[in-house]
């Protein structure tokens, strides 16, 4: 059986040209199409986007003549861009803190050998299985200021409390963070739960023997040990904040662009107004913003894996 196997395996290389009999070369050859595809569709495309951002292409017909920093100047002077930057900060703060705090809280509770853990876990992560478009559609209905959740609040007796949610001219973005956190906090919960489960029981027992209560246990043992998970959550939610596009596309940009995002601004400039140069400048800006969020994280993760 064994010799038959190897005989069959040998017959194939014998048919190939000499240079292909080296398996290392075959390996590189197999990987090559993917390398080329990623190089072109991700990296060359990004470079291309950067070039378009300094071109004169701001109408339907292609025009790649060099424009210098004209699009960038227009961008930094655009009031909508300023609002979007403010919105990014609002969204990132609200979204990241909700995802991380809720995710951690729920993971810590589920880690306490809770009855019905599978049920809770399944429910908490369910929104992550649906599209962000679905989240936006459902929450837009729930956050209609004249009814929706406000109706429930009024029925509970707080009639004077009537938030405008995504219609708020200044803080509409915070309402959007709820929709985002609804989808992603369960994901963060799953990350933390896996992290908590990976902490050896002996460590917990040793800390308890040393007289640590629950609070001390979390403060001095669990939270420091979960720092890599927190880092992952920060990077994923941070990158998600920069790329935020789906929800404003469903909800709209709100009064005075209160719920607009860079991603949606880029989309509208490029594909609705044919201002490719300006859209490319926004896209390039988003890329530049993402690099310091993502790069140190990936370097640290890869370094750790090597060890």
């Amino acid at each position: 059986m064994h010799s038959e196997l190897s005989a069959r395996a040998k017959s194939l290389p014998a048919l190939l040209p000499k240079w292909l009999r080296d398996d290392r070369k075959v390996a590189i050859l197999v990987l090559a199409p993917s390398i080329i595809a990623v190089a072109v569709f991700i990296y060359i495309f990004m470079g291309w986007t950067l070039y378009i951002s300094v071109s004169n292409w701001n109408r339907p017909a292609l025009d790649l003549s060099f424009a210098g920093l004209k699009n960038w100047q227009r961008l930094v002077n655009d009031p909508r861009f300023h609002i979007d930057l403010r919105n990014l900060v609002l969204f990132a703060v609200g979204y990241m803190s909700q995802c991380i705090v809720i995710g951690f809280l729920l993971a810590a509770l589920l880690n306490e050998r809770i009855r019905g853990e599978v049920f809770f876990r399944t429910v908490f992560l369910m929104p992550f299985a649906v599209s962000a478009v679905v989240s936006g559609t459902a929450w837009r209905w729930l956050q209609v200021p004249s009814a929706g959740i406000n109706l429930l609040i009024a029925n509970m007796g707080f009639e004077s409390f009537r938030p405008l949610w995504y219609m708020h001219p200044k803080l509409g973005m915070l309402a959007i963070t709820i929709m985002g956190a609804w989808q992603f906090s369960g994901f963060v919960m799953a990350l933390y739960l896996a992290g908590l489960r990976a902490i050896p029981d002996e460590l917990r027992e040793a800390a308890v023997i040393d007289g640590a209560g629950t609070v001390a246990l979390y403060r001095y043992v669990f939270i420091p040990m979960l720092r890599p998970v927190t880092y992952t959550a920060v990077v994923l939610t941070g990158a998600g904040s920069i790329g935020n596009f789906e929800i404003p596309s469903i909800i709209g940009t709100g009064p005075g662009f209160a719920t607009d995002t860079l991603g949606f601004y880029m989309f509208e400039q490029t594909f609705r107004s044919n201002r490719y140069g300006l859209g490319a400048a926004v896209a390039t800006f988003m890329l530049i913003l993402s690099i310091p969020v993502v790069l140190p994280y990936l370097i640290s993760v890869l370094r750790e894996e090597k060890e």
Partner: protein
Amino acid sequence: MSWNRLLVGSAKYAVLIAFAAFYLVPFYVMILTGLKPLEDISSFEIWNMPKSLDWGSFREAWNQMDSNFWNSVRITIPGAIVSTFLGSINGYVFAKWGFRGSNVILFLFVFGMFLPGQGILIPLVWVLQFMGLYGKVNGLIMAYCIFGIPITSLLFYRYYASVPDELVDASKIDGCGFFGIYRRIILPLSGPTFAVVGVWQCTRIWNEYLMALVVLGNPARAPVTVAIKNFSSMGVIPWNLQMAAALIASVPTIAVYLLLGKLFMRGLLEGSLSG
């Protein structure tokens, strides 16, 4: 049990139940609203139970989006299969046939995956137009295959790296070559990882919106995510139809999630590099 512990215990459950309600309310309201006929839809009655079960909204929504639903199926299945197989063979190369610089290449794959999609949209449209694939289902499938390469390669790489090198070396001594080892050693061990990556890719492609909107904005050819957007931007908003459409679009991924939750969870943990 002391009163104190009982109190803490019930507080834990109270918090868990409150959050379970938070996560479930949108689904509940979607079902509730979808089951009402149009004349009973008023934002003031959002919380009222339907007077009788009326499947009319679902029927109507389905009639308007069934072609989009099948478009999504036609896009998701080939996209997931191709990108999963590419990931398997790439992961095998990265894990067992690493060459000078292969780590850097894997790093660049993963790095690209974390950057916002807006950064490649304009050239993507341009190239698809040039290839005659813009506005076509096949163009979007091709895009999903290519942009799926980083995540699928990473997931398979992480799994294959855990396969002992001795196994590979032993079959090299037996005379197996690159493909022989893949077929005889690696593939037979890959079943569960194929399932994890396949589920992950199906969910991601089904739910993808940005690229679909840009490449396949045409309502007749669009997948479900874009169809929902078209529903919600109609002049007078028929809430019942929107909710029914959003639910119909979510049924496949929710079903996969409920039936194959473990696979889903593993993809999530591995893909975020913290598994």
